[in-house]
């Protein structure tokens, strides 16, 4: 993942530095077309990989790792390049990207709570099918 981001940032740098001096007008986001095409292809390839994980029925830790990896790489490419976050000032980047970090706490809390509820259900109702289906 680290290697990916290094290569990614290098390519971005290569493609933008030539234009950087000309286009550094405040809030102006004009970049060479080629960078969008590269990211576009990258998104296609990563989506293909994600689908392949399911198609080849990978299971267990390998499956979750790959799904999350491809997900974060895609999200990063969309935010950084398509949404121009890579070229914004830190004030805006932090204002937008830091607040969602508290979601990590929320996720952890709900995961712990979920495990607790699951165990409580097993103890109280047993693992059987009796509670399975409300009729529809």
């Amino acid at each position, binding site marked *: 993942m680290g290697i990916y981001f290094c290569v990614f940032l290098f390519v971005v740098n290569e493609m933008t530095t030539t234009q950087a001096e000309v286009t550094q007008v*405040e*809030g*102006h*986001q*004009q*970049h060479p*077309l080629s960078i*969008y095409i590269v*990211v*576009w292809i990258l*998104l*296609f390839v990563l*989506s293909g990989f*994600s*689908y392949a*994980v*399911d*198609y080849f*029925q990978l299971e267990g830790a390998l*499956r*979750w790792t790959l*799904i*999350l990896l*491809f*997900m974060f790489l*895609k*999200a990063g490419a*969309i*935010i950084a*390049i*398509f*949404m*121009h976050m890579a070229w*914004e000032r830190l*004030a*805006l980047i932090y*204002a*937008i990207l830091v*607040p*969602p970090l508290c*979601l990590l706490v*929320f996720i952890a809390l*709900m*995961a712990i*709570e*979920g*495990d607790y*509820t*699951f165990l409580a*259900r*097993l103890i109280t*109702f047993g*693992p059987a*099918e009796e*509670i*399975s*289906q*409300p*009729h*529809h």
Partner: protein
Amino acid sequence: MAEQTGLEGIVIDWSDDKQAFHVPWGKAMMWIFLLSDTFIFSCFLIGYMNVRITTTVPWPNPSEVFALSFGGEPIPLILIAIMTFVLITSSGTMALAVNYGYRRDKKKTVLLMLATAALGAMFVGMQAFEWTKLIVDEGVRPWGNPMGAAQFGSTFFMITGFHGMHVSAGVIYLIVTATRVGTGYYDRHRGGNYEMVEITGLYWHFVDLVWVFIFAFFYLW
């Protein structure tokens, strides 16, 4: 000058000739809206995680539920894969539209935005097909389904429904902005500033971004 107090004081303090973000205000506001939207979708996905952890009944296998057969063997998750590629394609055309907007290439900007809107409409159409198949053929309801955990239906309809609503709103937003670019509205009223194209683009990329997470957590997990 005396310090203003009360309501007027608030207005003066909040518009106190200070600028935190060196971007057009519309763009800053769109980012803040998207931040709030992030929390909404996160709450949905976290709620889904919670009910999926807590259920003692097996979760239906999305790979099989969303399989589709074209005459032969059913191909797992194929419709969702196609929808994903359609949405990514639309994100690409949108990124190019923003680029041509900055180049003031009116014709290409409008065409690419309309292409994006068309791909978005195609996505919603396929989603309607998916919902119909699930409701009519598979008997999935928000309160239960024949395949397993009852919560599958409620979380599915809520999460994909809310996302589909965002895509539909985005299609309308795109058509409005494209029309305004095409008819020269921004040339007459905004001094030829096409920044609205980029702001519309931010919204559209966000919709694609949310789908990346839904695809990973709901369909692949």
